[in-house]
């Protein structure tokens, strides 16, 4: 941990050229003075100009050196879940130690450390920084170190911060056990092995068979209200790269997307990181049931324009995350009108389209396009198999676009993020088993509904109300009455209390850019019914405990 903090504390590494190399037999003093002369430029006289900064620099190095003690992280526990988790948890072991003959150089390196190491890019430095300010990841990490287990660790942290669905994975596993071997290795004759088709290069954006199967599945999820054309699909290793690739195609570095908030915290990393695209949150309000407001989008667009920020798209999730709403047809039409008027794109992240537990029928933006006769080339859908099917480890994401250039570019960019061949093969068979899929979707829906009701009711018992949600793996809980000061700071304090006292990891609204303090996203799909009373007990520690 401390080693990378050394690298990332480099001041703007991309602008400081590497200093002239110093020979290792020169005295320590020279190593300090020579690089500094360029900085100081002899101002304040040679004595003051050299000695004072030297002294300061020397003390700075000593301070840095004293901070950089090697740390041993605990060995990683079996990985449990995937989202965009942080990595503190299993830090690499320290590199093999230098042999005796290089002790002298190691010492000097301690004094000069930021300069004699090759730097990482500013992009890398930004992400190598410890994520202390991102509670979304901090909570996840803490949970990994002390995970709740009914038998082995009953006092551990209960994970309610990760949107994963374990409610129906048994159904998937059963199917796999019965069918997977045949699906993967079946040759033309029973018992014959033929892996040739698996091993060779496939098109980077997915094989035709797999595209057909995924397009068919997407249609099935929407109950055949839309027919998806496989040639308008690019497959990627997860929705995470799908979103990034789309961002690379729709915007240049320094451009921005308008994003109704609260929104999925992962986008801050996934979209902004390497593309250089900004995300401008457009707050939705509880008084409005957190619905998207076109006037708010208008205002945000105008303000951005004034700042000289070019907006290239509106990014929405439908169903929404973290609020769990299904967008109405009217809202979709309004959004389409808005982006048409501004001549920008609309990105609709529909990863939870098959995870509706409420009564509303899900309407995809694709469906609205069909009926409203709007220019389709500005509308792009992101989808994936990590939510509607519990297969996040298999890495399957989808870009669906009517824009030929976007599809062509995305297909090429997919080379960096392709779906593994055996996975394509296996899932082609699974997704083509329409009966199984239909049974799965229905069974899962019922289980989600049941768990949602139980969970919301449990929270109610401890005085926590949830906003009405109909989709997703989570509920959007209002805990504002339990925060001491109605502010970001107050929310953070409550979050910490929930983590350390109730030992429950939930996602605070501020990670989702919610402007109203006190809202928390709580996922219920990794729980079993037996866990619910325990959750109630834990929450009581905070809701009924001392403030």
């Amino acid at each position: 941990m401390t080693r990378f903090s050394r690298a990332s504390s480099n001041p703007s590494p991309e602008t400081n050229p590497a200093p002239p190399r110093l020979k290792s037999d020169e005295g320590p003093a020279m190593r300090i003075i020579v690089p500094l002369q360029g900085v100081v430029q002899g101002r304040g006289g040679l004595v003051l100009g050299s000695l004072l900064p030297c002294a300061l620099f020397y003390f700075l190095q000593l301070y840095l050196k004293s901070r950089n003690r090697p740390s041993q992280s605990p060995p990683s526990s079996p990985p449990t879940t995937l989202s965009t988790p942080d990595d503190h948890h299993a830090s690499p072991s320290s590199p093999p130690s230098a042999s005796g003959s290089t002790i002298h150089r190691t010492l000097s390196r301690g004094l000069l450390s930021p300069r004699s190491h090759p730097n990482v890019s500013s992009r890398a430095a930004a992400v190598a920084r410890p994520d202390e300010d991102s509670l979304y990841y901090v909570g996840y990490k803490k949970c990994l170190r002390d995970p709740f287990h009914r038998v082995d660790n009953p006092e551990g942290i209960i994970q309610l911060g990760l949107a994963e669905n374990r409610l129906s994975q048994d159904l998937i596993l059963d199917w796999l056990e019965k069918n997977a071997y045949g699906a993967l290795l079946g040759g033309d004759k029973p018992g014959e092995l033929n892996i040739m088709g698996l091993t060779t290069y496939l098109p980077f954006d997915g094989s035709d068979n797999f595209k057909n199967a995924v397009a068919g599945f997407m249609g099935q999820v929407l109950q055949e209200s839309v027919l998806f054309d496989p040639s308008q699909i690019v497959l990627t290793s997860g929705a995470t790269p799908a979103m990034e690739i789309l961002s690379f195609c729709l915007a240049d570095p320094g451009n921005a997307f308008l994003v109704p908030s609260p929104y999925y915290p992962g986008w801050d990393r996934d979209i902004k990181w390497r593309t250089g695209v900004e995300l401008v949150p457009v707050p939705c309000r509880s008084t409005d049931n957190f619905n998207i407001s076109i006037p708010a989008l208008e205002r945000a667009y105008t303000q951005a324009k004034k700042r000289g920020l070019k907006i290239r798209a509106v990014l929405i999730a439908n169903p929404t995350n973290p609020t769990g709403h299904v967008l109405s047809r009217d809202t979709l039409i309004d959004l389409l009108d808005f982006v048409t008027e501004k001549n920008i794109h609309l990105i609709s992240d529909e990863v939870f389209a098959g995870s509706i537990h409420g009564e509303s029928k899900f309407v995809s933006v694709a469906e609205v396009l069909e009926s409203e006769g709007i220019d389709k080339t500005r509308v792009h859908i992101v989808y994936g198999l990590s939510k509607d099917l519990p297969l996040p480890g298999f890495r399957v994401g989808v870009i669906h676009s009517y824009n030929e250039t976007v599809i062509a570019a995305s297909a090429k960019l997919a080379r960096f993020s392709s779906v593994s061949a055996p996975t394509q093969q296996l899932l082609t068979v699974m997704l083509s088993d329409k009966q199984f899929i239909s049974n799965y979707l229905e069974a899962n829906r019922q289980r989600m509904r049941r768990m949602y009701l139980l969970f919301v009711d449990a929270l109610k018992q401890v005085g926590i109300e949830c906003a009405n949600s109909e989709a997703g793996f989570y509920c959007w809980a209002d805990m504002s009455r339990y925060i001491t000061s109605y502010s970001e700071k107050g929310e953070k304090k409550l979050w910490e209390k929930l983590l350390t006292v109730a030992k429950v990891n939930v996602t605070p609204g501020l990670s989702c850019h919610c402007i109203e303090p006190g809202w928390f996203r709580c996922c219920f799909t990794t729980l079993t019914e037996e866990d619910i009373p325990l959750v109630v007990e834990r929450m009581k520690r905070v809701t009924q405990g001392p403030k």
Partner: protein
Amino acid sequence: MVVKVYKPCVPLSAIATSSTHGEDSPYFAGWRAYDEDPYDATTNPSGVIQMGLAENQVSFDLLEKYLEEHQEVSKLVNGIGGFRENALFQDYHGLNSFRKAMASFMEEIRGGKVKFDSNRIVLTAGATAANELLTFIIANPGDALLVPTPYYPGFDRDLRWRTGVNIIPVNCNSSNKFQITKQALEEAYAKAKKADLQVKGLLMTNPSNPLGTAMTRPVLEEILNFISSKNMHLISDEIYSGSVFSSEEFISIAEILEERGYADAQRVHIVYSLSKDLGLPGFRVGAIYSYNDAVVTTARRMSSFTLVSSQTQKMLSPMLSDVTFTKNYIKTNRERLKRRYNYVVERLRECGIECLHGNAGLFCWMNLKPLLEEATTDGELKLWETILKDLKLDISPGSSCHCTEPGWFRVCFANMSIETLDVALSRFTSFMEKRRKT
């Protein structure tokens, strides 16, 4: 009267509309020609034979045999195995067992001469992703990487497209069998400085693609000294390390680092993949091995965009950890590649074509300088077109690989059956005979 309605076009990014994907070069044009008219022994015997794709099909029967014989693996093949609760989920550390298996396999390839720590392995969906990831990590937009020529045409795209990083070639030529020299390194570095570009690293492929040669110890030492002196990173793309015909002839940068007590090792990053040695390009399994903690941490997080399917990891883990299997596989694969290489070189020599003396890889570096009408890139491309149109052979022109000497071509021989290879070689023979007569 038809009224043309002009619809305003929604603007796209520069990346989407640029041609930095580099796919306009003959390297890819040849592939397209193959796609349109692919050779098939029975249905299309006069079709284009693909000799421009470095794929290894000589040993996949060994993989099939393994899966057939190891019934317990068949259960794992469905991607489950192990703990049912965690079966379908994973995070970006990848499965511990799989990282260990990769480390073990990489050690086997190097004859046990080095040890790899599985915690330093970051998994990516292929070496393509690994190279791009490292470029994102060590360089900023506008910076430069030095890459010795001739190099894999895909680098133009993989290292530059989204990263915005420039490639400065380190030019090598046939006078010394295309080996990298200190002078060439210094020249390239000076060129970058003159153009006001910050050089952040050197990316080398060892064994080389397209040359098919393993780098020698003195050259590796020279390179390590160079990158240290210039305070830059070194990426050693060793994806063909298991395809060196004789294990003694491959020296990994890891060995040199170990000999030096890992001094300055934090500059060095190794890229590996199962696409070439194991002939599993479709599986999308690549890895970064870095001696630099900051790079490992960052690469791991950035690998979110390019994770390896957990099913695939589970499937391959037992096989790669099975030392009996891997020892035998590596040995057999090497022997078969060597046999093919010798066969191809001999047949070509018989009809008057010489190749660079190679000791690795899935291809040979063929010298067609004597056949050029003019010793220029144009001359080379004319010859390439002739070979594609008349011989119906897709081979890769050196200019696509940024070779400064016109007339060299990369010819892949491991991606087809021996029968198809014979057909291809006989086409060369007839071509050369015809030329002799005219």
